[in-house]
């Protein structure tokens, strides 16, 4: 048969590829079903964005840390991208009682639930743990007229339309929420804010470097090198405390009463049974205490922001409130 002639190499290629990807997902782990000694097996981490993004990175690093620390075996990272993570959220909410599934989420998903008019909400999930946070930073080009945050604020208040704000996320994302909350705090109507959305931090930074936006708001991690080399000027960070290694004042220190960080954490499906919730929280806690995770935090420049269970649940509720308020003022919620 002629058909068989090409079917075989094709199957071989497929098998090879699948083997490679399976091996990839488990972080090079030995695979196999039977785990012992208190190890968790068959955990699946759902990522609501495409490979390469912040959620994806966090999930993959966490999976590797759990495996290297012998806390879990065969952790699968599954990308289910779409609608800012709310497609994945819907799947999670639909998987009632599944104790082997968690979602890697964060502040971005809180906003997406509103902008995508998602039926699934974070209140329906079982909060497990907040893992990391990253402050946002206000930056301008080295050629910008604004030397200090005060100057920027004065100009912004005088004519919000004229001072454009660039952000690396779409409306509802962290880079959009931060300037909107800032505006609200200093008495500018968020509707007046001239927010320009760029495709990710990279494209935004290019616009800031080229002095094409009034100012940019983005994650601290993406800008450190540019600040160090003097290509861009940092005017404020949005965290409660100044960021280590950066000589930049916080918003609060400069008279703007706002704290804001882009956080990432884990939630599980609703209605977990028989101690599944406790087991997952314990897993998160053990991972957080492991040397492997600590090393990963340092290597990736992430700030530890560990809280668990109900405390995390309360936190999600308050974030939800604050995001919902500002987005409804903008007509997005």
């Amino acid at each position, binding site marked *: 048969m*002629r058909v068989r002639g090409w079917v075989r190499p094709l199957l071989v290629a497929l098998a090879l590829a699948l083997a490679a990807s399976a091996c990839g997902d488990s972080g090079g782990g030995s695979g196999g079903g039977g785990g012992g000694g208190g190890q968790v097996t068959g955990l699946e981490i759902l990522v609501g964005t495409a490979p390469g993004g912040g959620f*994806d990175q966090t999930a993959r690093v966490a999976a590797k840390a759990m495996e290297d620390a012998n806390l879990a075996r065969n952790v699968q990272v599954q990308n*289910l991208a779409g609608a800012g993570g*709310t497609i994945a959220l819907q799947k999670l909410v639909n998987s009632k009682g599944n104790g082997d599934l968690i979602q890697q989420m964060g502040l971005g998903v809180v906003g997406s639930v509103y902008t995508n008019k998602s039926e699934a909400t974070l209140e329906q999930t079982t909060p497990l743990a907040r893992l990391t946070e990253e402050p946002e930073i206000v930056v301008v080009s080295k050629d910008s007229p604004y030397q200090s945050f005060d100057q920027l604020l004065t100009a912004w208040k005088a004519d919000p339309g004229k001072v454009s704000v660039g952000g690396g996320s*779409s409306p509802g994302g962290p880079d959009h929420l931060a300037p909107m909350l800032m505006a609200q705090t200093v008495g500018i109507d968020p509707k007046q804010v001239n927010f320009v959305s760029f495709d990710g931090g*990279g494209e935004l930074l290019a616009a800031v470097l080229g002095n094409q936006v009034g100012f940019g708001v983005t994650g601290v991690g993406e800008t450190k090198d540019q600040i160090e080399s003097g290509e861009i000027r940092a005017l404020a960070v949005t965290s409660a405390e100044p960021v280590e290694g950066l000589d930049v004042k916080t918003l609060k220190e400069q008279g703007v009463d706002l704290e804001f960080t882009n956080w990432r954490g884990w939630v599980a499906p609703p209605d977990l049974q028989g101690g599944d919730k406790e087991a997952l929280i314990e897993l998160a806690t053990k991972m957080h205490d492991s040397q492997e995770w600590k090393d990963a935090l340092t290597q990736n420049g992430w700030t530890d922001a560990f809280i668990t269970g109900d405390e995390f649940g309360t936190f999600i509720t308050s974030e939800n409130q604050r995001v919902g308020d500002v987005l409804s003022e903008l007509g997005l919620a």
Partner: protein
Amino acid sequence: MEALSDLLNGFATALTPTNLAWAALGVILGTAVGVLPGIGPAMTVALLLPVTYGLEPTAAFIMFAGIFYGGMFGGSTTSILLNTPGESSSVITAIEGNLMARNGRASQALATAAIGSFVAGLIGTMLLVLLAPAIVDLAVGISAADYFAIMMLAFIAVTAVLGSSRIRGFASLAIGLTLGLIGIDLATGQQRLTFGIPQLADGIDIVVVAVGIFAIGEALWVAAHLRRRPADIIPTGRAFMSREDYRRSWRPWLRGTALGFPFGALPAGGAEIPTFLSYVTEKRLSRHKDEFGRGAIEGVAGPEASNNASAAGTLVPMLTLGLPTNATAAVMLAAFTGYGIQPGPLLFEREGDLVWALIASLFIGNTLLLVLNLPLAPLWARLLRTPRPYLYAGILFFASVGAYAVNASTIDLVILLVIGLLGFAMRRYGLPVVPAIIAVILGPRAEQQLRRALQLSNGEISGLWSSPLAKLIYLIIAVVLLWPLISRFVLRGRHPLAEAAAGAGVPLEAEPPPADDDRVPEERP
């Protein structure tokens, strides 16, 4: 010249037999995963990245470079053979590439793609070595208004692919623009044409549109006619490129590289627009215009070179500024961080040795890709000897698996089928499919840049032409549009000038206007 000696040092570090073996493994794995439909280079690299984690940095780079180039080439392979592009930058390749394949010239199409990718990768990486710092300063100065001007130029060029009936061409264009509107509006966050279906919120992926219109539409069309026509088998033809094929390919390779690299280096350039500009350029400049639409080798050589050159260009902002400007670059950035490299303005000073080893690895990966894949081209091509019903069943299967694989979502299958039916209907009523695809690529980008430009100028329309570059581009557009008048009244009867303009290296500004499309060839001596 310091760059060159640094590069040689990089080769000294990178070139060992073991490392070459890793590179070969990377190329094979990358190609194998890359040919799976729906899995583009970004996904390929993300999936295979952990495989490299256990290696020391240089070996990891080399294998990584192999995976990267393998993944890129894998996407082109499915475009050409099965009409199912794996990524948006090989959508244009599918147009002529698949036609070539169906005329029994699949080997040549794959070969010109492979060699073109090699040439472009080689030149692109050289340019990266020599020009990176200079380009970066220029690239960040390009504003949204400039991008919009470039898009307008691209839209003018679209008329070249509208086909014989303008009305049908514009109708197809409108279908594409409408599909491009679907999703959440990035400027305001409002939903457009999503009909409350959450899966539509991010818009429809270009790949799904292309696979739906090309592959599904075609398969349905063939199925609809199968009973009335004998199920003939596609001929395999010669195995390798002839002298004539080389003669027709080398200029498109170089022109494609020249278009692709700068677009890759621009923060919002991307790999799609240069492939499309390259296609249009080759169509204009080819001596075999009649072959376009029936499988012209130039239409594969140019776009394939330009998407690879663009990939090399992407490394410019990434390595020198730490700016990932597309998904593949974002995955790579994550990878480099994993190897202990922090891309950014200080990278070359801080980690010079590693960076040069990486760049040398890119050369090696690129070379191995050619060495391994060129002999395989005739083997791949034999896939097409499958009898038509099985072949199209296979295409349908692979297209569906691909659409499903991206997000494991059944809605994507429904979307694919609906767009496939649209593609079938377009064929039934004689609408050309290429303008629709190009509009899906161009429309949303042009809109985004226009609105960005207007936002940045706070609503002042003059902001659109405030920069010198934008002014220059609009001037070119004006010349292109007014060319019929100019040529009629000023240059009447002076054929040599027109000939020189049409043969000039910079295609679009010298392009005869669309209205003269039919007349120009007759004017030639």
